Every structure is written in structure tokens, then in C-alpha cells.
């Protein structure tokens, strides 16, 4: 082709055109491609599918509504409309005339409006000029202007009047017109109302049509005009994301795919179209966490801003099955570069912690609450700081200040060495004989440490003399008492496994092998008066008689652990001791000089020194009161922000079978912390010191949920529910209640009441449930009651113990209950009973007809009482509560034996003869009567 070249040309022109054509083609294809690449998004398909689902739902509703429509009525209406039209068309001439009149009036009105507008402007302007002249003290001009103004104003008023007259005229004519058309208008209106629902549904259905307009609206390029398929988002101003130390409002676009999350009626659809399962608590408009305020990722975690792919959102599958399903369905993969992936479904409640940090138990959050109870049980907070867990919590283990008076040293060593060999329910974790310290050379050193710890503890132990003497009693009776008075609210007991397993008490230790452990005298005095041995114990006094105490002790002492008794602990290996001490001393020194330094110490001195260092090393002082450790911090890492700790900061060791996820690590860690050292050659002092609690997987998972929620996100003040003064006091009271394990027995406002599970047959035989207790009882009475417990329900075998409450704690409880129920301190404490004429007679009649004394027999008959003494009611109960109680007892305590005398709604009294069956009056009278029983002064 080169012969075709023109002179002065390097290339053949047609060749250039060909190259141009090919390149342009490629260019064109890439242009189309880039458009499509931008346009095609997975969430669009989901929204189209959602539209179809909505269409189906609307269609169903429409069909139902159409079916409901009374066809006959509709045809009647239609025919009456036709009739009406006929009638109205007969009045054609009249209507036309009226319309003509209307037109004339409207024209006049319009003309008048224009005139008035001009006048209005003139008046305002003249007014301004007048005022300006006045202001400038130009009285001459002012006067002139005033004259003008007066004339204008008069005209204006006339004009306005004229307008009003015309408007009135218009109204009359319109009314006339309406009257002339009334048959048609009213029927039309009736038809419209009658078919309203169907019309609306039809319109709703029309919005789901897939038609050309839908296609145009969502077409590439022009989908900016008014698309129906679009990203939906919620901007949450009160919950923020941290972006380089700046708090930026969260943006959640989850609803782009979870289209119906806040709309009831889609509960049965497949994901992502399902309605939120707890609409009344979450997401729903009327719930406490409305969608637009709380958003999605505030609770669930994950990447709320992402919409383009399932995995980048950081959806997390719960379990292998779901993982497989997701991989297959959505191409799910482990999220990378995501700070906080979503909480797995079973861990969702972790999301509550971020905002509900300072409360003990969150209502409705079952798993989380159980996790928090487990933390309480194992005392994690003692070694690990966790914000929200209070700074001055009690130490979870028993005091060792007088330990020598309780157990002997040999027992102590064996116990520390391996607590589970004595008590398989032990909450005391195992530090030794773990997979990372079971090499013979480590065991040798560990045993030296245990020996030294025991020497130190016993060296510091103060003498203790029991204040009771043990006299063997009836073990069977003791066992019965234990099962009845309420010990099981805090303790599991050998021989009572069935009940204990139901209650799952955890505040106190499981009682086993006591005969192999404690001195009998100590046990009796402990039972009689726990604070004699340990001043700050939470163990209450059950006000046991000597016989009862001895019976219980006899039973407990009969529980023995023979194999443990036979154990003897090896003697202190002084070589190992010296090695360890030299190791400690060589931290800042050469080993040789450390050895020589140790050699200069006395034998006893060495042992005690190692004991103290070992206690410090294992953090025993965190859980137990011990002398010499004031001001020592817990040895565990701070867990306050555990849920936000970068995954790279978790040491997985060689445990490759554990997925590299925060929750998996925590669960594995809790179950067997020593695993991280496995297969790694570590020196003795560097071994992982976290002890083994032998937790079940279920428990570990629950604690994991509670810890996962400990995220570092800063929630702005207005994003968190702020306590009112009353709620704050209630919260404080609940902390005290938590400390003394009140909820081991009492269910307080629906939470816990562990022991009630042992009373499943008859809940009324268990400890009373406390609902809005601050409203039920008077403040003074409650305060008094805590100091001097007196039986209220003598038929119950379970006893309210006498707690060793401090004054502050007592006040907190009383004030918290009272404020939590929003009651005044002194509501009607001295209410005088003022009877209306005839009221008292009615009250007496009711008293008899409702037969109150059949249960509230105390002070009336000799029958066994089944209900509290009403003579005490006026001192104990608030009258306003008595009324509520009378009205609907089942509403307050479902399953109570108190009958409902006033029907389910509290308005239908059984006895209709008194006060004409007026329920409020009856309730009032009965309340007064009950209060009078307490010996209040009566006035006529």
C-alpha cells in the first residue's frame, strides 16, 4: 500500500482511518462498560424484589378489602347517585342562575379586593409617614398626614366591610348551590368514604407497578431525576463514629436492603425483607429505640455506610451452618479492614452495653444479663477493671484475714493447688496443673510458690475464737432447714442437688465436704452470726435458733471429702524457693549477685518474701482480703474497651483452629486460658497467669457477649438515656441489691428471683416478688424492716434474712425503691380515716361479703393465715397501693392467691349491692377500713 502514500505523508490516510475506527470502537465499548459498571448494583435487585413483595402484600390486602366491600350497598349507592343526578339535572335552570349570580359576586369581590389592596398599601404608607413626622417632631406635617390617614382609614374600613358583605353573599350562594346539588354531593361523598380503603390500596398497588415510567425513572444516566430505586439512609446525630478523634454522626444505609425492617406485616418474609423481630422494643416508631433515632449499627455493629456488597457490611454468620449458607448465597467472606464487624445473631445483645453501661441488668437482654451475672459470679471484675462495674465492689472471694481460725494450713495448700479436687463446683479458679505449667520443673516451682503463699497467709492471719460451741444435732432436720429457709438462694448444697440445680445460685459457694474443711465451732458461729468472723461479709444472718444452727452444722459437717482429706502437700522445696527468689531479685541485677543477696536472707524471711511475691504475682489479693496488699491494682488487663480491641492485639498463639475473631478468642480464653502457651517454649515467669475457671462453653459465650459490648465508642450525652434523679437512685439501690444478692430470692420488677424456680408448683410459697416495691410499702416501714426483720407472711418457710447492711446501703435501698416508684417519702403516712356517711357500714358489708378474714385471718380467727396481717397494713402499705392492689391483684402479681373482686378491668365488683356496685367507691371504703384496722384515729 505504500505506493498510495501522498507526498509529505508518513502514513497512508485510509490506514489511519482504520486504526482510528478500531480504537474508537474500543473506546466506545469501555464507555458503555463504565456506565453499566456504575449502574448495576446488587441492592437494586433487592429493592426490585422488595417491590414485588410489597405488591403481593398490597394485593392481598386489596383483595381482602374488596371482599369486605358490600357489593349491594355499592350498587345501591350507585343507583342513588344516578337518581340524585336526575333530580339535580331537573334543577338545571336554577343552578345555572345561581352560578351566574356567583360569578357576579366573585367579580365584585375581586374588584373590591384590588381596591382594598391599594387602600391597605396607602394606609400603611400614610401611617408610616405620619409616624415618621411625629418622630421628627414635625407637627405640621404630622397633622396633615393624620388627616389623610383618617380619611384613608375610613375608606379602608368601608372597603373591608364591603368585602365581608360580598363574602357573606358568596357563602350564601355557595350554600344554595350545594343545596341544589345535595343529592349528588352527599352520595358522592358517601361513595368516596365507602371505597376509601380500596382506593388507597389501589393507589399503593399502583406505586409498585413495573411499567415504562418505572423503567425511565430508574434508567442509567437519568436516574438522578426522581428514581424509585435508591439508597436509603438514616443519619444518627446522637450516636457517632470516631474519625480521627472527631465524632461524626453515624450513617446507616442498612434499610436500603432491609426495606421492611420497621414495617409490621413482613415477619414471615425471607431476609433481608423481614420485619425486625422486636418491633415494640427496637426500630418501631413507638418503641424506645426508634429507627430514625437509634439507627442500626449503633446496636448491631458493622459498617452501616456500605451497601454494595454483602461481605463489606461485615455481616457475621452465627455458626458454621450459616457461614456455609452465606458463602454459597452471597459469596460471604471474612471481613477485612473492618474495625467492628457486626455482632453475630446470638451476640446481638452485646450492642446494649454501649449505652446501658451503668446498669446492672438490662431488661429484655437475657443473654447479656446472664453474661453479666456470670461475671459477677466469677468475679472477673476483681482482676480486670471494667468500667461500669463500679469502683468499690466487694472482693468476690472470702476474707483470709482470720483464715487460721477457719481451715488448717494443709487443707489450704491442697485447695489452692487444685480447688476442683475438693469442690467440683468451686468458683475458685485453678492456677496450677494447667497445660502450660505441668512440666515437672514448673510443678516443682509452683509447689514452692503454694507453700510460700500458705506460709505468708497463715503468718498474717489474725487469731479467731469461735463464739459458739458446736453440739451435734439432727442432720436430717438440718438438711430440711437448709432447703426451706432460703440458703439455696445463694448456695448450692450437696444432697440437695435437685433444688440447687434449678436455682443455679452463685452468690455463695457450693456447700460440699465441709466436714473435711472447717472446724465445727467456726461453722456454728458463722451460721449464727457471719459478721463475727468477717465484718464485711454479705452472708446474712438467718436468725437461726441454736438448735437450728447446730442441726444445719451437723448436716454440713456430715458432708466429707475423704479422698481430699487423705492428701498431704509436699514440704517446701527450699532450693526451688531460692531459685525463684533469685529470679525475682535478678530483674535489675546480675543473677550471681541476686543469688548472693538471697543467700544472705534468713530462712523464714525467704519463705515469707516468696509468699508475698507469689500472691502479688497471681493476684490473690484481688479476690481475697489479705494483709499487706493495700493499694494493689488488679493484675488483669483492663476490659473496658475489650469489644473494640484490634484483633491483632489478641494473641492466638498456635491455636489456629480458633477463628481470628474477637468473640472466638474471648470464649476460648475463658474456657482454657493456658491454651495460648501450648506449643510455645516459655520461661516460667512468662507463663500465662490467667487461671482456669473450668467454665462451660455456654457460660463462656455469655460472658463473651457481655465483654464484646465493652466498646470504645463515645456515645454523645444526648444519645444515651439519661437517668432522672429517681431512676439514678433506683439504679444505685439495684447495685446494693446486687451486692447482697437480693435477687437470688426476690424477683425485683421482673428480674431474676432465682430461687423462685424451686417453687414452680406454687409461686406463692416462695419469697414475695417485688413489683414497684417503693409504691407498695412505706419508706419508713422499709427502713425499719431492714434493721429489724419481722415476719409478714408467717405461713412461709423461707425467711427474709437480716443483712449486715451499712447505714448508707440501707438508705440507698430505701430511697431507690421509693424514688424508682416515683413516690414521695411521706405519702399519707399518718392518714386519718374520714368516713363519708354510710361508707363505713358499706365497708363492713364488703369486708364480710368478700370474706377477707378467711385468708387475712391474723387477729380475727384462729385459722392458719394465708395472707399478711391486715392490722399492720396501715403502717406498712401505702393506701394508694392498696387501692391498686384491690382493683387488680393479678395485674401486679400474676398467679397471686389474692382474688380479684372487681373483675379483670377492676370495674365490675362481685358484690353489686353495696354502693350500687360502684367499684371505686367500694375500693375506697375497703382501703379506709384496712387502714382503720391499724388503729388510726377515726373522724366522723
Amino acid at each position, binding site marked *: 500500500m505504500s505506493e498510495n502514500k501522498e507526498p509529505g505523508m508518513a502514513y497512508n490516510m485510509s490506514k489511519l482511518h482504520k486504526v482510528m475506527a478500531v480504537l474508537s470502537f474500543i473506546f466506545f465499548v469501555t464507555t458503555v462498560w463504565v456506565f453499566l459498571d456504575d449502574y448495576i448494583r446488587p441492592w437494586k435487585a433487592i429493592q426490585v424484589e422488595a417491590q414485588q413483595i410489597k405488591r403481593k402484600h398490597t394485593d392481598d390486602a386489596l383483595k381482602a378489602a374488596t371482599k369486605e366491600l358490600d357489593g349491594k350497598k355499592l350498587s345501591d349507592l350507585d343507583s342513588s347517585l344516578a337518581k340524585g343526578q336526575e333530580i339535580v339535572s331537573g334543577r338545571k335552570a336554577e343552578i345555572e342562575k345561581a352560578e351566574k349570580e356567583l360569578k357576579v359576586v366573585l*367579580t365584585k369581590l*375581586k374588584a373590591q379586593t*384590588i381596591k382594598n389592596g391599594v387602600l391597605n*398599601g*396607602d394606609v400603611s404608607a*400614610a401611617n408610616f409617614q405620619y409616624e415618621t413626622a411625629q418622630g421628627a417632631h414635625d407637627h405640621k406635617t404630622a397633622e396633615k398626614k393624620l388627616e389623610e390617614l383618617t380619611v384613608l382609614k375610613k375608606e379602608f374600613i368601608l372597603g373591608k366591610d364591603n368585602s365581608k358583605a360580598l363574602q357573606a353573599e358568596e357563602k350564601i350562594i355557595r350554600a344554595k348551590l350545594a343545596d341544589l346539588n345535595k343529592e349528588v354531593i352527599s352520595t358522592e361523598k358517601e361513595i368516596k368514604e365507602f371505597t376509601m380503603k380500596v382506593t388507597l390500596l389501589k393507589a399503593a398497588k399502583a406505586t409498585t407497578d413495573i411499567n415504562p415510567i418505572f423503567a425511565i425513572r430508574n434508567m442509567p444516566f437519568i436516574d438522578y431525576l426522581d428514581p424509585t430505586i435508591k439508597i436509603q439512609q438514616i443519619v444518627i446525630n446522637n450516636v457517632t463514629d470516631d474519625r480521627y478523634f472527631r465524632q461524626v454522626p453515624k450513617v446507616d444505609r442498612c434499610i436500603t436492603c432491609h426495606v421492611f425492617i420497621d414495617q409490621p406485616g413482613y415477619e414471615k418474609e425471607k431476609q433481608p425483607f423481614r420485619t425486625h423481630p422486636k418491633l415494640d422494643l427496637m426500630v418501631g416508631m413507638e418503641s424506645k429505640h426508634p429507627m430514625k433515632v437509634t439507627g442500626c449499627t449503633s446496636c448491631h455493629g458493622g459498617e452501616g455506610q456500605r451497601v454494595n456488597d454483602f461481605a463489606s457490611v461485615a455481616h457475621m454468620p452465627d455458626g458454621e451452618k450459616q457461614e456455609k449458607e452465606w458463602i454459597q448465597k452471597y459469596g460471604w467472606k471474612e471481613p477485612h479492614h473492618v474495625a467492628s464487624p457486626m455482632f453475630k445473631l446470638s451476640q446481638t445483645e452485646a450492642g446494649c452495653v454501649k449505652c446501658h453501661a451503668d446498669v446492672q441488668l438490662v431488661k429484655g437482654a437475657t443473654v447479656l444479663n446472664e453474661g453479666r451475672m456470670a461475671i459477677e459470679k466469677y468475679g472477673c471484675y476483681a482482676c480486670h477493671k471494667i468500667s461500669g462495674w463500679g469502683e468499690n465492689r466487694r472482693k468476690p472471694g472470702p476474707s483470709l484475714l482470720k483464715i487460721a481460725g477457719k481451715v488448717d494450713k494443709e487443707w489450704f495448700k491442697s485447695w489452692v493447688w487444685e480447688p476442683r479436687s475438693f469442690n467440683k463446683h468451686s468458683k475458685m479458679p485453678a492456677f496450677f496443673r494447667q497445660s502450660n505449667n505441668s512440666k515437672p520443673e514448673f510443678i516443682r516451682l509452683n509447689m514452692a510458690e503454694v507453700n510460700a503463699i500458705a506460709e505468708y497467709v497463715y503468718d498474717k492471719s489474725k487469731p479467731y475464737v469461735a463464739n459458739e460451741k458446736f453440739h451435734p444435732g439432727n442432720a436430717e432436720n438440718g438438711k430440711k432447714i437448709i432447703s426451706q429457709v432460703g440458703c439455696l438462694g445463694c448456695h448450692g448444697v450437696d444432697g440437695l442437688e435437685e433444688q440447687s440445680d434449678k436455682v443455679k445460685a452463685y452468690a455463695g459457694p457450693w456447700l460440699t465436704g465441709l466436714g473435711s474443711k472447717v472446724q465445727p465451732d467456726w461453722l456454728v458461729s458463722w451460721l449464727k452470726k457471719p459478721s463475727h468472723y468477717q465484718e464485711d461479709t454479705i452472708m446474712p444472718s438467718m436468725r437461726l435458733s441454736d438448735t437450728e444452727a447446730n442441726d444445719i452444722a451437723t448436716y454440713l459437717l456430715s458432708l466429707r471429702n475423704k479422698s481430699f482429706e487423705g492428701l498431704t502437700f509436699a514440704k517446701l522445696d527450699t532450693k526451688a524457693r531460692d531459685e525463684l527468689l533469685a529470679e525475682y531479685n535478678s530483674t535489675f541485677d546480675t543473677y550471681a549477685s541476686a543469688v548472693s543477696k538471697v543467700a544472705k536472707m534468713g530462712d523464714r524471711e525467704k519463705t515469707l518474701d516468696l509468699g508475698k511475691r507469689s500472691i502479688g504475682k497471681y493476684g490473690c489479693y484481688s479476690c481475697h482480703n489479705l494483709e499487706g496488699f493495700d493499694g494493689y491494682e488488679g493484675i488483669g488487663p483492663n476490659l473496658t474497651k475489650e469489644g473494640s480491641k484490634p484483633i491483632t492485639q489478641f494473641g492466638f498463639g498456635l491455636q489456629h483452629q480458633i477463628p481470628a475473631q474477637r468473640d472466638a478468642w474471648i470464649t476460648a480464653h475463658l474456657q482454657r486460658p493456658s491454651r495460648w502457651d501450648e506449643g510455645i517454649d516459655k520461661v516460667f515467669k512468662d507463663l500465662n497467669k490467667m487461671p482456669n475457671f473450668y467454665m462451660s462453653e455456654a457460660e463462656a459465650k455469655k460472658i463473651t457477649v457481655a465483654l464484646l459490648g465493652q466498646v470504645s465508642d463515645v456515645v454523645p450525652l444526648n444519645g444515651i438515656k439519661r437517668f432522672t434523679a429517681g431512676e439514678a437512685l433506683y439504679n444505685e439501690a439495684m447495685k446494693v441489691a446486687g451486692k447482697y444478692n437480693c435477687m437470688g430470692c426476690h424477683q425485683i420488677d421482673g428480674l431474676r428471683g432465682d430461687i423462685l424456680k424451686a417453687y414452680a408448683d406454687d409461686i406463692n410459697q416462695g419469697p414475695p416478688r417485688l413489683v414497684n416495691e417503693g409504691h407498695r410499702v412505706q419508706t419508713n416501714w422499709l427502713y425499719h424492716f431492714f434493721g429489724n426483720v419481722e415476719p409478714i407472711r408467717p405461713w412461709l418457710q423461707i425467711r427474709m434474712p437480716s443483712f449486715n447492711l451499712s447505714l448508707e446501703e440501707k438508705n440507698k435501698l430505701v430511697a431507690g425503691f421509693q424514688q424508682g416508684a416515683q413516690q414521695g417519702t411521706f405519702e399519707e403516712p399518718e392518714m386519718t380515716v374520714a368516713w363519708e356517711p354510710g361508707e363505713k357500714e358499706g365497708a363492713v358489708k364488703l369486708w364480710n361479703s368478700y370474706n377477707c378474714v378467711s385468708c387475712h385471718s391474723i387477729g380475727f380467727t384462729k385459722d392458719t393465715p394465708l395472707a399478711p396481717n391486715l392490722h399492720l397494713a396501715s403502717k406498712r402499705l401505702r393506701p394508694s397501693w392498696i387501692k391498686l392492689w384491690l382493683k387488680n391483684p393479678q395485674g401486679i402479681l400474676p398467679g397471686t392467691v389474692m382474688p380479684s373482686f372487681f373483675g379483670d378491668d377492676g370495674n365490675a365488683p362481685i358484690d353489686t349491692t353495696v354502693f350500687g356496685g360502684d367499684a371505686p367507691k367500694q375500693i375506697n371504703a375497703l382501703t379506709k377500713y384496712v387502714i382503720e384496722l391499724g388503729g388510726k384515729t377515726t373522724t366522723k
Partner: protein
Amino acid sequence: MLRELVNKLSDPIISFPLVTIGFYFMLKYYKIVGTKKFAYWTTALLIPITTWFLADPNFFSIIKTPDNIPIIILLLLVGFVTWFAIHKAAENDTRIEAGLCPIEATPENREKVWSWPNLVYTELFAMIACTAFLVVWAIIFKAPLEESANPTWAPNPAKAPWYFLGLQEMLVYFDPWMAGVVLPGLIVAGLIAVPYIDTNPKGNGYFTFKERKMAITAFLYGWLVLWVYLIIVGVFLRGPNWTFYGPFEFWDFHKVVASFNVNLSEIIWIKMLGVGLPKNLVVREIFGIILSIAYISIIPPWAAKATKAGRELFLNLGATRYYIFMFLVLMMTSLPIKMILRWLFSLKYIVALPEWELNL
């Protein structure tokens, strides 16, 4: 008393015709205006008047606003350059009448000189002077800064940047689509079209008035009266609620001016014919529509036939240029026409179709 007179005179109703008349006389007697004597006398007269103006606290407070400084500079500069251009044109015209060439075309001015240093140096001087001027300006006047942005309350009056105030002033007479979109668009298009419409070969490269009266008159009217004058009104004479305030008037928030404007359709159907407004929108506005169309489509052919100037223009320009030129001129004059209709008849819209957002 005198102040009140000035206040009254500066109301656009009066000042606009005054400015127009002044403009007419300026061009009619441009040779007198273009003398140095005239300039000296005017300056001598303006100095005491300005001093008197400045003595008024209300006027001074408006003048001294930092953002108004550029407008004052603009005013002084426009005043001077207008006179200067007229002066130069008058000089040249006298020479042309005498059969000489314009000064710029004299052989000595056509002589070639070195760019270095003649041009480069003068440019440098201009830069230095300009920099010095800007720095001094910046030192004396702080750039304005008001309260931080708050979308929930608007300052009153809310004014656009000063160079757009001509447009904002047009908003009083036209709807935004005309004042803000169509008219500015036509200004730009018209300006670009100028060299293609103005086929007059004379006056290329030198100041003259005589040789291109039509072009200069049309341009200067648009520039001085419809642009600069309106900016001055917008900056100095429009206060809260875009109400007119005289130069000596305090911007009293409560000032109310009697104004109630009526549409052409209302005037005709209700006031004149006494019948109500027809329901059909087009019928309702038919008079306005006919008038508007007639204004654009009838005047140019009529002028081309019936008037002498029109005939000449038509012959000189040819049909296309003629119609484009007439269209632009008519659009320009629509503003003064609308103003005058407003003042005389309180006319709001000639065509009022708020239903279609189409008001004229």
C-alpha cells in the same frame, strides 16, 4: 428641605427619567460635555455637593460600608472614563469634520516603537501602582465578615453581590426567569453578537461618536443607565424588604410604601369589562399574550417600513441582522417600558400565568 428634595428625586420613579434625560443631553451636547472646561466646572460643582452628601450621617453610614467601596470606585471611574471617552471622541470628531484623521491615526502615533522598554516598562508601572493601591486599600478597609452562616434567619435586605444588583433590581419589575435568566443570557449573547451586527466599518480603533452614533447610544444606554445606574440604586437606595430609601433616609425597618400591583388581565376583565376572570388560562391572559407577541413581532417590520431610520437600518444591515438587532433592542427597552407601566398603572404582569410560572 433640600435633603427631602434629593430623597424624593432619587426615587427611581423620578430619577430614572431624569437619568434618561440627562443621558440624552449628554450625547446631544457631547462636544460641550467633552471639553475640559466642562469637566473642571462639574468637578468644582461636585466637590461641595459630595461634601454636603457626606455630612449626612445616614448617607455616610451607607458609603463607608467596606463592601460599598468598590462601587464608589466604580462610580468615580465610570464618571471619569465616560467623560474621557466623550472628550476624546469630541476631539477626533472635530478633526474628522475638519477633514483630518483621528489623533490615533496620525503618522506619529502609528510610528513603531520598541516594546522594551516602552511597553514593558509602562506595564510594570501599572502593576506597581495597582499593587500599591490594592495594599493600601486592604490596609484601610477590612474585608467584610458578618455573623457566621445561619440558614434559619435571613438578614434583611439580603442582597446579591453588588455586580449582580442590577439583576436583582430588575426582579422588582420582572419575574426571576426573565430578570435572572433570560435577560442576563441575552446581555451576554447580545454583547458577543455586537461585532456581527455592527457592520459600520468606520470608527475602528479610535474614539469617535459622530461616525457610530447608533451603536454608541445603544451601548451606552444599556451600560450606563440600565446597568450602572441600577447597581447604584440597588446598592445605595434599596433597604430592608427591598424598599426604596432616599440617600439621606434612615433605613427604618418599618417603612412601608404604598404598592399594590394589578395584572393586565385583572385591569381589563374586571375593571374595564366588569366581568369575572375567565376560567381558561389562555383566554384570561389573551390580551397580554397578544400584546407581548405584537411587541416582538410587529414593531420591527413596522419600523422597517414606516420609519426613515428603520428603513436605513434595514437596508444597511440586511434582514437577519436587522431582526436580531431589533429583538435585542426591544428586549432591552422592555425594562424601561415595564418600569413605566408599573409607575403609571401599578401594573404587575402583562401576562400573569403563575400556574405555569410564566409571568411577564
